[in-house]
């Protein structure tokens, strides 16, 4: 009996779509467009997130050392730095290396360096931070601890840049949440209401089925399967359309556009995002059907 019913429900759902091809196509199209708007937002937001995390990776803390430290003392300082939980990597730059890099940077104005007698540049440690600690508060607390290490003369971390980046990222996150929330709400309303309309168009059928002796589930199940199928097809359509748009945009971008953003490609949605989008389509279709069929079952 259970298998008989499942086969019947699938047959009914398929036949309903076949009998109402035009309505089904319009519904899939509407859902597809709604999801397309959402996925365009998603692709922009996730790419912006990627770009900002590359910016964050550039944050570094530089600890300048006092002159005249022995190798043993330098190694001990390095160990102390490495023992801090925020540290991702530490690179030691000796006085000599600092000077040669300085010379390289000023290669066009070598005359400036001629007057230098003794090497005036200090040795330093270039410190990169773990992702979770790339915010002003964590950096400040680390800097305070670094300053207390004996042998470190000064610590620099580009305070203004870190603070600006941090407030920009906060703004981006809030704006993203507001825009994303509004678009999600619109998609939920559009998808569930479009599915509701297809059910509403067949409310007489629901009444007739009930009068013939069909149980609520016997009437409801094919509508739910149909809702899920339409939701799935709509979200699948949005992914296909999005991929088409993505290809057009990527191919028409000038090669040096990447330089503007500090990276060379715009990434498409990740697989988990695509799967989530398809699941959202299925669930919204199911929800729309469930709510609207329920309303017409009281016969």
């Amino acid at each position: 009996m259970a298998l008989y019913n499942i086969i019947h429900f699938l047959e009914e759902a398929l036949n309903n779509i076949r009998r109402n091809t035009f309505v089904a196509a319009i519904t899939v199209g509407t859902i597809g467009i709604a999801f397309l708007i959402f996925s365009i937002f998603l692709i922009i937001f996730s790419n912006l997130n990627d770009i900002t995390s590359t910016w964050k990776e550039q944050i570094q803390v530089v600890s300048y050392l006092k002159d005249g430290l022995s190798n043993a003392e330098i190694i001990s300082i390095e160990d102390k730095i490495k023992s801090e939980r925020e540290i991702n990597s530490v690179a030691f730059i000796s006085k000599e290396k600092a000077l040669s890099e300085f010379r390289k940077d000023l290669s066009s104005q070598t005359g400036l360096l001629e007057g230098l007698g003794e090497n005036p540049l200090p040795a330093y440690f270039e410190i990169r931070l773990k992702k979770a600690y790339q915010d002003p508060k964590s950096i400040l607390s680390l800097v305070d601890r670094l300053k207390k290490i004996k042998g470190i003369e000064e610590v620099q971390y580009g305070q203004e840049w870190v603070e600006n980046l941090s407030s920009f990222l906060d703004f981006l996150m809030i704006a993203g949440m507001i825009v994303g929330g509004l678009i999600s709400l619109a998609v939920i309303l559009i998808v569930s209401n479009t599915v509701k309309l297809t059910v509403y168009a067949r409310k007489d059928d629901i009444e007739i089925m009930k009068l013939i002796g069909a149980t609520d589930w016997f009437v409801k199940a094919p509508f739910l399967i149909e809702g899920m199928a339409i939701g799935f097809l709509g979200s699948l359509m949005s992914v296909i359309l999005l991929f088409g748009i993505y290809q057009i945009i990527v191919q028409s971008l000038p090669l040096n556009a990447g330089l503007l953003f500090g990276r060379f490609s715009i990434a498409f949605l990740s697989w988990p995002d695509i799967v989530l989008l398809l699941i959202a389509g299925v669930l919204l279709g199911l929800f729309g059907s469930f709510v609207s069929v329920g309303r017409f079952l009281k016969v």
Partner: protein
Amino acid sequence: MFHVSKYYDKNFPALRDISLEINKGDFVFVMGPSGAGKSTLLKLIFCAERADEGQILIQGRNIARLSDSKIPYLRRNLGVVFQDYKLLQSRTIYENIAFSLKVCGVSNSEIKRRVYFVLKQVGLEHKSDSFPIRLSGGEQQRAAIARAIVNEPAILIADEPTGNLDYNMSVEIFEILKDINVRGTTVIVATHNREIVSKMQRRIISLDKGKIVSN
């Protein structure tokens, strides 16, 4: 039915203290002017409306207090025919009739056998693949009757089955209902059609303003 009342409006009951008995195999007409309560009386039998007072016993079971989840199983033992046919417009006549059997979990081969049997009974075997919209009113009502009897119900309820049909078609429909009754099904028909009713010489329950005026 024992002391059954139904109120849509507190002050004007649609049915007031109705008591009546219909025996197995009877053919009964329910008559009366518009608004007398004929349709409400029939709706109470297939639970499209619920009685506010009284008891309705079908084969010894009080359906006035039947839980909502049990109503579908009651309806499978009743055949109902409506004035507006209530056929599923997007399905063929065959599919419309078959749906009644699918609801009960009947196998496809049995569905086929029984649908063609009833289609023959109402003279529509050549229209099985047609959609309702392609059929005349009389043909649609015959299809609706075929759907109502395909489950071999104990009781057939018809609410104004000839309300949308001309005289000749109405006679045809009543002949089919008579045939069904002869095979042992109890038939209850609400109608305005005095001419045919008087010709058929069957029991008449007359209602007026929600009360039985003659039985």
